[in-house]
């Protein structure tokens, strides 16, 4: 029988575009140390470790064995889980199963990336088939630009609607001392930023960040002794549905992987009205148009209603369902850590440790991951043990 599992501690680096003062292992060590301090454990208390990043960004093969001096994996079970942008949620879900299996009581999940050591786009384009996709339609931006254009065409959404998402996330980031981009912006700033691929402009997309995140998962009966208010994992679901970018989105249906993953996770958690039931959502929104369209796929509002939902402030702090109190991916993007940061930030909200970015009395929180070929992961956390 699967055991109940909770998050009892989180740690993250202070994210920056370039951390020349530390190497990868030292950066991981910072996040791990902070996570252990957060839950007052020592590395000796950790039974197993799951780590993830994307190989080609730092060009390290076998990151699990490479990392042990920073991750604390010396003479411990450690494995690497990697799925592109969804790496962080994949690592979190793997740590969950380590504990749920009954084999390990306290497990450390680590996501990290030192993007300053890479050419991110050069590395990312190699995710596609070398013959069919790589030279035509690969990398992060082309397919997102297509999705955004199709959405605007279908529902009449505007570039200004999307810019509002960037302004919201960047404004929220001012409350998060760990965030990478902490400078306020206005809609005009987004609109006048350089066009990358229509309709995506520089301030519509996430930055490249150096950073790491660590999260401690613990078993029922152990978790309650570690944390006064653990964040219980209520459900999770994953859809890594596509292999080819040409197949990746059905523009008439939306982000199908997120629709499917969220409906499975909602069903397991007994959620029928997400916008009403969730107190906060930390969403992996790598670009602003996702902040319009994907909240529809999550069922926060109906198809085509995303722009109005955002414009009416429902996703702001104090709104119906605050989205990304941390500032989200548009403010911080250390890729292998990015989705784990969503899980960590959702847990922070439940544990009541959000300080300036805290949403009052969070009982139910959601985190998502996005990556690969329009893949989606959903993790639901709760103040109540499932």
């Amino acid at each position: 029988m699967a055991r109940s599992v909770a998050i009892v501690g989180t740690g993250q680096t202070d994210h920056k575009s370039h951390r020349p003062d530390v190497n990868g292992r030292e950066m991981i060590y910072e996040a791990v140390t902070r996570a252990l301090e957060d839950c007052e454990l020592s590395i000796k208390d950790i039974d197993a470790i799951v780590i993830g990043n994307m190989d080609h960004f730092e060009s390290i093969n076998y990151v699990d064995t490479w990392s042990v001096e920073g991750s604390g994996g010396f003479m411990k079970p450690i494995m690497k889980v990697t799925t592109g942008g969804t790496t962080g949620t994949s690592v979190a879900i793997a740590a969950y199963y380590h504990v749920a299996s009954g084999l390990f009581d306290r497990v450390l999940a680590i996501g990290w990336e030192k993007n300053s050591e890479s050419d991110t786009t050069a590395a990312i384009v190699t995710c596609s088939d070398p013959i069919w996709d790589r030279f035509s339609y690969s990398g992060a931006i082309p397919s997102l630009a297509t999705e955004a254009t199709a959405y605007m065409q279908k529902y009449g959404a505007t570039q200004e609607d999307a810019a509002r998402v960037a302004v919201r996330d960047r404004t929220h980031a001012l409350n998060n001392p760990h965030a990478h981009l902490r400078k306020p912006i206005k809609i005009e700033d987004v609109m006048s930023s350089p066009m990358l691929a229509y309709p995506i402009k520089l301030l519509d997309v996430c930055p490249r960040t150096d950073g790491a995140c660590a999260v401690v998962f613990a078993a029922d009966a152990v978790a309650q002794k570690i944390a006064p208010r653990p964040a219980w994992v209520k459900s999770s679901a994953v859809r890594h549905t596509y292999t080819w970018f040409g197949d990746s989105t059905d523009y008439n249906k939306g982000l199908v992987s997120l629709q499917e993953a969220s409906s499975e996770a909602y069903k397991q958690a007994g959620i029928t009205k997400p916008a009403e039931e969730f107190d906060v959502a930390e969403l992996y929104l790598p670009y602003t148009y996702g902040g319009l369209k994907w909240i529809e796929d999550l069922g926060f509002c109906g198809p085509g209603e995303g722009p109005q939902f955002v414009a009416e402030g429902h996703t702001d702090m104090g709104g119906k369902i605050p989205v990304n109190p941390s500032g989200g991916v548009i403010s911080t993007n250390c890729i292998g850590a990015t989705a784990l940061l969503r899980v960590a930030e959702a847990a922070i909200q439940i544990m009541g440790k959000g300080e300036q970015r805290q949403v009052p009395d969070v009982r139910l929180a959601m985190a998502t991951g996005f990556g690969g070929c329009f893949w989606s992961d959903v993790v639901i956390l709760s103040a109540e043990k499932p």
Partner: protein
Amino acid sequence: MDSIAIVGVAQTKYERRKKDKTYYDLVYEVTRDALEDAGLSLDDIDNVITVSNDFLDGRTISSMAVGEAAGGYHKNVSTVEGDGAFGAFYGAMRVLGGFKTTLVVAHSKGSEGDMRYVTNGMFDPVYQRLLGLEAVSSSALQANAYMEKHGVTEEDFARVSVKNHGNAKNNPYAQLPMDLTVADVMQSKRIADPIKFLDCSPVSDGAAAIIIASEEYAGKARTKPAWIKGVAHCADAYFIGDRDLADPKSLRDAAQRAYGMAGIREPLEEIDIVELYDAFSYMEPLWLEGMGFCDPGQGGKMIDKGITTMQGSLPVNPSGGVLSAHAVLVAGLARIIEAVLQIRGDAGPRQVEGVRTALAHGINGPCGQSHCVWILAGNM
């Protein structure tokens, strides 16, 4: 631990170069064959673990290429980057944690890259990589350390190569079935002292898949289940200069925990066969020591006394081992598959009689830095 079992297995024949197939073709082939072996359909599988490595595939997010081929469409999927024995362990955790059936699939095409560069990437980019350290040269350091500490000889290693390539003659999937003599191995080209050409595993293309099921679902498969009695993994220090390379202590830790789960006290008496990760011939005796089948330094004698031959009391690598086929990442999963076939009695000409308990083993990182040990049994 709840009772869970491996109920379906499949592997490709391992070859130097599978020119006619992409690696997603290989993944599709073993996925289909594992389902057929188990007598299950894709609808019976509720989650999938793929195993891949971006360096080997020359592709970032290497799992992206195989999701469809592995039947991951509309399912909960994840990817372990590392040896298949580790990927299978995550698959097992997911069954223990609430899923009914996990399909685990690993692939690699060594022919499409250069293993020297791929394995050089394991080493520290600042201090070690420019020295040219890669799998063969680092393993040569380990073999030297082992010989120096315990007086094991090159001939001891050569005997492992002779035995395993001979065993491979009984395995239709093996890449290098060979009749060798100790003299052949000793006279083969010196690659990195003391490792010679015939002490090395080959570069291979191949794929493998297993299906792990909960107790309830194990009954739905048509195969005799191989029950998972114990599994554990552990990593040693990273810099090889920080380790005693002749003392595989992370393997000892993993083996002892796996034995503890399986209730094994005397491994030599209680385990009937071993399938271990012999990427180089010296690894077999060294890993046998780490697994507690003999005292430190006595691994060489295991083969001298005939204990590890097909006729011995503890046959090691009846399949021919990794020395006879080395699709990286796949190799650990292949060890598990071979152990399952031995337990089922389905191993054909390489079958050892009366196998009730088997050990399978995989490694990650340089010189066996990280080990994963599996104990499988025919009885629940």
